[in-house]
């Protein structure tokens, strides 16, 4: 029976813990209202395109890599490249590494598929401690911030400007500026990464349904008057009257939604400099509160709230099933936003398979037409410091080759669904013909890429620092919590949720 003594001890453990949890002093936030949505809109509209530079790219540091005189000396070097490409993309990469080896026969390139982006980060952070990190790696900005704690990431500035191995001004200008600047968001204005392949968020809508019901495609979020037919709110309400069981809008990533709202409203989210976490502000609280009303009317959902891919809701065609008619997701995931083909019989009795509805793609709704913002995502590549500078130069040569080669960028973009990072790809014959064929059915990926490229001047990226990934996680949690948590004191709950998120961010 001693087992029970044992259990009793365990139970006491649990009870003590519970009581301790109950004892923490409740932060009595007041229940005062936030600023009005009208004010939020007015503030957003007051931002002019010029003043919207939310990021400061002033160079304050000195590049940490000196290119050896003469550049690459032709010596035998082996470099390693960690990525996350599936087998179809790896085929493309291997093909161009072969071509690269024609130019530089003495550079051996080993590529390793390390898993997902998080796996790359974990592997490299561990390897950094033992000095066995690769030469190049797929990266997201927050990874680079982590690698940069021991200052192991090569600043690319000197390499870019080098007379022997550098880039020409034309090559630099060819990069889509939003993507290029992503490499300089680390607070000191220096260049840490080059963009590799990119995507953005777009609004997919059921074009057939919109046309049949004479609904305009929304281009901004909130209604400014009752007959504001192009606002998301108006469209959602209208769809609800037509199909009451629907959830009109599905937004895949709650984190992106939160961060994008901050950008569009012109309020801070995070900063690369001290006092990193700045999202605890009235504007975002007001927006969250408004979204909570949306949720209560079943106008919108996110992947986490919904419990499954929101694209599944969008491509649903069953007559008695709940559907969504708008879906905001990655432009690289266009094929998932296309309904499965159905077989129909024409007048002569021939069976053909067609898409049950046509998908339209436009840029996501905005707060202000003068301060359009849309997130830029997708991998960049960084180079690690090595004792042999030739390895660094060789890595740079590979990176330069892959990012500036029109053929590679075009082929890679076609295979992956991502968009190329240089503008001249649009003149590439294969790519151009693919773009020209873009439609909401068979060539939906091309349509997504086209929409993505059309808004290239609106891309933003959020600052990267050690902890920016925590901020992103908290942003996701915050939106989901604010719109769905059951409470009788909404403002208080939102206040506490924001404070909680800030505390979590600042903890470590």
């Amino acid at each position, binding site marked *: 029976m001693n087992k029970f003594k044992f259990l009793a001890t365990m139970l006491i453990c649990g009870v003590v*813990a519970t009581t301790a949890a109950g004892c923490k002093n409740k932060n009595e936030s007041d229940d005062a209202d936030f600023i009005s949505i009208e004010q939020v809109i007015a503030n957003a509209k007051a931002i002019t395109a010029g003043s919207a530079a939310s990021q400061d790219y002033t160079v304050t540091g000195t590049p940490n890599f000196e290119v050896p005189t003469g550049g690459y000396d032709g010596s035998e070097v082996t470099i390693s490249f960690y990525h996350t490409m599936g087998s179809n993309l790896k085929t493309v990469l291997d093909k161009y590494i072969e071509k690269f080896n024609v130019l530089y026969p003495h550079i051996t390139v080993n590529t390793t598929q390390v898993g997902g982006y998080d796996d790359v980060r974990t592997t490299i952070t561990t390897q950094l401690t033992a000095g066995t990190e690769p030469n190049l790696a797929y990266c997201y900005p927050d990874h680079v911030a982590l690698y940069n704690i021991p200052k192991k990431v090569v600043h690319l500035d000197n390499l870019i400007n080098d007379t022997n191995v550098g880039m020409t001004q034309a090559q630099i200008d060819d990069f889509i500026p939003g993507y290029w600047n992503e490499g300089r968001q680390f607070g000191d204005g220096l260049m840490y990464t080059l963009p590799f392949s990119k995507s953005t968020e777009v609004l997919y809508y059921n074009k057939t349904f919109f046309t049949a019901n004479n609904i305009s495609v929304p281009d901004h979020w909130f209604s400014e008057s009752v007959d504001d037919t192009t606002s998301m709110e108006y469209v959602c309400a209208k769809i609800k009257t037509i199909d009451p069981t629907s959830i009109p809008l599905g937004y895949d990533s709650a984190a992106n939604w939160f961060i994008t709202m901050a950008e569009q409203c012109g309020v801070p989210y995070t900063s690369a400099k001290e006092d990193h976490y700045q999202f605890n502000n009235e504007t975002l609280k007001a927006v969250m509160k408004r979204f909570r009303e949306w949720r209560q009317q079943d106008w919108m959902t996110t992947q986490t709230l919904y419990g499954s891919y929101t694209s599944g809701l969008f491509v649903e065609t069953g007559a008695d099933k709940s559907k969504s008619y708008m879906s905001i997701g990655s432009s690289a995931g266009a094929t998932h936003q296309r309904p499965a083909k159905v077989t129909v019989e024409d007048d002569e009795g021939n069976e053909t398979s067609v898409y049950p509805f046509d998908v339209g793609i436009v840029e996501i709704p905005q707060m202000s037409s003068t301060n359009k913002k849309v997130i830029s995502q997708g991998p960049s590549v960084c180079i690690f410091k090595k004792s042999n500078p030739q390895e660094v130069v060789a890595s740079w040569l590979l990176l330069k080759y892959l990012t500036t080669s029109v053929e590679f960028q075009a082929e890679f973009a076609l295979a992956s669904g991502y968009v190329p990072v240089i503008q001249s790809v649009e003149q590439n014959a294969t790519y151009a013909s693919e773009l020209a064929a873009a439609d909401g059915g068979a060539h939906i990926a091309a349509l997504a890429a086209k929409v993505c490229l059309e808004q290239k001047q609106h891309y933003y990226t959020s600052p990267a620092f050690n902890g920016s990934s925590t901020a992103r996680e908290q942003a996701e949690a915050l939106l989901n919590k604010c719109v769905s948590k059951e409470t009788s004191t909404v403002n208080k709950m939102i206040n506490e949720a924001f404070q909680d998120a800030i505390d979590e961010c600042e903890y470590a």
Partner: protein
Amino acid sequence: MVDNKQQWKAWLYLAPAIVLLLLFTVWPIINTVRMAFLEGYGNLSSLNADKTFEFGIENFEKVVKYKKFTTCLKNTCLLCVLTVPISTLLALVIAVCLNSIKPFSRLLQTIYFLPYVTNSIAIGMVFASMFNIIGGADISKAVSIGIVNNVIEFFGGERIAWISTGSSYSANIAVMVIYIVWNALPFKILILLGGLQSVNKQYYDAAKIDGTSKWRVFWRITVPLLSPMIAYVLITGFIGGFKEYTATVGVFGEKMGPADDPGRLNTMVGFIYKQLEGDHQGLASAASLILFGIILVITLINLKISSKKVQY
């Protein structure tokens, strides 16, 4: 003489194990202790030559002061207290039943072992999909309510939000208990059934002649004879239980809770992992040592009880 020779032999036999343990277990532990007492230690930060860390207990203070530390501790203890006895008892009953039958015994043994050979990634996703509710804000209009709710409604019950938005803490814990028990069963059944089959049949024959009731036989003969196996299963169960993390990730994903309350089901190891992800090895080490202390106390109690109760 004999004693000395035995000493010498014992260490010789233990040498390979000890050498490897020193290198790959003891040294990491020492290193863990070192990191735990270096304030704000991070592996990556430590690579900077000019960076030094103060010696102190700040890491421990910081761990304990973490707002959700008690949540993590509570979840860990609760899951442990619930799952270990349930799974052990269930495994014992199944093992005894399996041992008492002849037809289909082989087939059933194989089935009960199946979960052991499947991959935890896959199973976590499967469990999540069995309990998940997919749909909008109104649960009564959900698109899909998961097979478990289908069964409940079939028997006239009401659907429950198990793990989705708006689910209650007790529902979350219930799902975790089911998953962890499911996961733990095959190993426990294997050990206990193996033990049962080595039990001398004569004890049972004697009991049968005496006309002892089955229930009495179970408690008076089976359980005591199995006590070493039960002790093993309990100790490893508790140790494993306190290190619970993967099951929660399997069911709830990295957010460790339902959508409207992420982190609600976070555990001690979940907290440690999170710190390792950033460059906070000092904090992670301190938390590990705290966890270690808790497990140590539990295990010592456990060993003390079993040294009294276990019959070899």
